[in-house]
């Protein structure tokens, strides 16, 4: 949204952004104007207004525009102490009827009903209506359309510079009175409350003015109102506000009374000083600092500016302050929440990244092992290994079987020429070997000799060879001059040849 404040000396343009139910200032411009582009009744120069707005609008993306006009015609106001709630409603109804009589083709009405309620009563009440000539609004809207934006509404602002000035005053409870050639406006400020007390058109016959606008439907009291005296009205306003202050905020005291406006004179301040003990001071016409006695006593209020002028020269950037404040308010909470969520997401991402990394590392290790074990080279080596092992085991078993066979063959003790050579080696010279037979480890030899001693000698010699486990000699027989005998030799398993 773009907000445009059309003043007499400056046009303030601000682009605002709605964030989380609050407004944030995006950018702002101050345009100094040579002379007012509108007065109370008409838009004086639409083309010049467009030229003032064009550079700023070109830099703004928002299309919706609201306009604030300053100081429109005040047609009615009411101020009561106290007022019942129902009376407020009735008053609103009456005023509505009054404004219904206005020509809708010529005028638009900005109607305000303000009140401070205390229980069922409204000790302070103001009813103010501003009549805005339709031609001003229509002209401004056309100007905005030409610049490619959409007008969304208008606002009547009274004494906007005056309202800015109020915000700069740091005291909590004070009265500020704006005195101009045409109007007298007084505000009672009780921070953070702001009570608009009274706006009076000066130097105009009230009866004539009102009759011209509303015809004969106004109350006799209003019509009969005399021309307002500035000094009397000024004191009347301040005294009523002082009274209200005492009723609404008992125990508190007004800290200051400020007088502003082009028509303010030292006599006005003197009037108030004579009738009240509240420190009174005058703010300069161009809002430049003015030293007063109150300030010399240590009052902190000292500097006031014509804000439009100060901002156009860059001396003060009021919007920047607003921007910082709004951004701080809008973003502080959201930023914290975003930070928390981002940190949470970051932690989550780190956590998952670690898990994924660990998983990939483990899977990589597995894959490397699988690649190794399924590679053709390894498979070939495995096959070769299995073949070697199988063959080795088979060979070993075969050797074992062959060794077992050798054991069996050895156990059978087959005949060999060694046995015969052993028998022959110990045979006495006069002994003749007639025959020998061998079967199943038993060797039977048959011999003869010429005397009876050699058979025993031979048997003893065979025993002495150690080749046999047993030597069986059963005697001899004689015949033909020869001694015949037989010896049975048993081969033993345990005997070493």
């Amino acid at each position, binding site marked *: 949204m773009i907000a445009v404040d059309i003043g007499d000396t400056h046009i303030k343009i601000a682009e605002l952004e709605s964030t989380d139910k609050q407004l944030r200032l995006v950018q702002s411009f101050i345009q100094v104007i040579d002379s007012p582009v509108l007065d109370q009744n008409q838009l004086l120069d639409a083309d010049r207004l467009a030229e003032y707005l064009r550079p700023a609008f070109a830099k703004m993306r928002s299309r919706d525009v609201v306009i604030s006009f300053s100081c429109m015609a005040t047609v009615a106001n009411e101020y009561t102490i106290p007022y019942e709630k129902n009376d407020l409603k009735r008053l609103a109804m009456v005023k509505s009827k009054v404004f219904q009589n206005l020509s809708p083709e010529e005028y638009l009405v900005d109607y305000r009903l303000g009140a401070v309620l205390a229980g069922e009563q409204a000790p302070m009440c103001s009813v103010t209506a501003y009549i805005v000539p339709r031609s001003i609004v229509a002209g401004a809207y056309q100007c905005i359309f030409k610049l490619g934006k959409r007008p969304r509404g208008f606002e009547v602002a009274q004494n906007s510079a005056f309202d800015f000035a109020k915000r700069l005053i740091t005291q909590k409870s004070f009265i500020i009175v704006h005195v101009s050639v045409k109007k007298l406006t007084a505000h009672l400020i009780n921070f953070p409350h702001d009570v608009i007390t009274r706006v009076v058109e000066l130097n105009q016959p009230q009866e004539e003015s009102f009759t011209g606008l509303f015809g004969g439907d106004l109350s006799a009291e209003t019509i009969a109102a005399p021309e307002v005296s500035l000094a009397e009205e000024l004191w009347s306003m301040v005294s009523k506000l002082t009274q209200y202050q005492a009723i609404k905020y008992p125990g508190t005291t007004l800290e200051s009374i400020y007088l502003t406006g082009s028509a303010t004179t030292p006599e006005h301040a003197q009037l108030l000083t004579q009738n009240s003990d509240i420190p009174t001071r005058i703010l300069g016409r161009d809002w430049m600092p003015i030293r007063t006695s109150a300030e010399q006593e240590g009052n902190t209020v000292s500097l006031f500016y014509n804000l439009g002028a100060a901002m156009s020269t860059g001396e003060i950037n009021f919007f920047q302050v607003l921007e910082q404040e709004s951004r701080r308010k809008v973003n502080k909470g959201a930023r914290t929440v975003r930070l928390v969520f981002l940190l949470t997401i970051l932690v989550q991402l780190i956590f998952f990244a670690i898990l994924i990394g660990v998983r990939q590392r483990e899977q990589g290790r597995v894959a490397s092992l699988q690649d190794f074990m399924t590679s053709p080279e390894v498979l070939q080596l495995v096959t070769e290994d299995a073949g070697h092992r199988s*063959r080795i085991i088979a*060979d070993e078993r075969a050797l074992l*079987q062959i060794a077992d*066979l050798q054991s069996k063959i050895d156990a059978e003790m087959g005949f060999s020429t*060694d046995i015969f050579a052993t028998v022959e080696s110990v045979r006495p010279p006069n002994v003749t*070997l007639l025959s020998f037979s061998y079967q199943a480890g038993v060797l039977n030899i048959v011999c003869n000799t010429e005397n009876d001693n050699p058979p025993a000698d031979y048997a003893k010699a065979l025993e002495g060879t150690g080749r046999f486990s047993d030597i069986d000699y059963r005697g001899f027989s004689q015949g033909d001059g020869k001694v015949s005998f037989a010896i049975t030799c048993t081969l033993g398993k345990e005997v070493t040849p």
Partner: protein
Amino acid sequence: MTKRDKVLLVVLGVLLLLFIPNYFLTPQLVSGITDARAQYQTLSVAHSAYQQMLGTLPNLRQYRSILDTELAGELPETQGMTKTYELHYLFTELASQNDIELTSLQLGSFTELAAPEFTEEQLAGFANQIAGITFADFAAVPDNAVKVQSIPVSLSINGTRDNILKLVDAMNDYSDYLVINSISVPMDSESEIVGTNLAATVYIVSPTGGTAE
């Protein structure tokens, strides 16, 4: 909405941010890691075995070569003589080489010898001598690495005593596979001896088909 509500909302959001991804992703990731680690443990055992195997492969090659040579030396000349006529050639050759007249040759029937049964201790002890071969590997190979058969032989021969002893001596060259069970030799004359009977047993060792690569 109060500040407390906002704080609770933020805390709830943070918890949801923490819970939802964890609920869906963390179990899968952790499960994947656990599975991969278990698989790695399993594979690493096999991998170690492979590495060890590759290390022992040269030894296995060398050992096999040695064994093949040894076994070839151990196998007798009679290996593969599974036909009786082959034995006929053996004995007639021996007789003629030693001037012996072979008057009778009686060949019995082949009888296969049962494979020896080794005890586990024997096999385990033997397996331990071979690098990289376990008892389980050894026990997995059948017992009949070679086939052993025996056949009885009876010979009637004529010849001098010395020639008969030469024949016996020649047969003793086959003593590992040929056993002279009985022999009867009259010694009353240096002349030719007639009718000497000799009984022997011949063992035939044949490599089985399954043992060879």
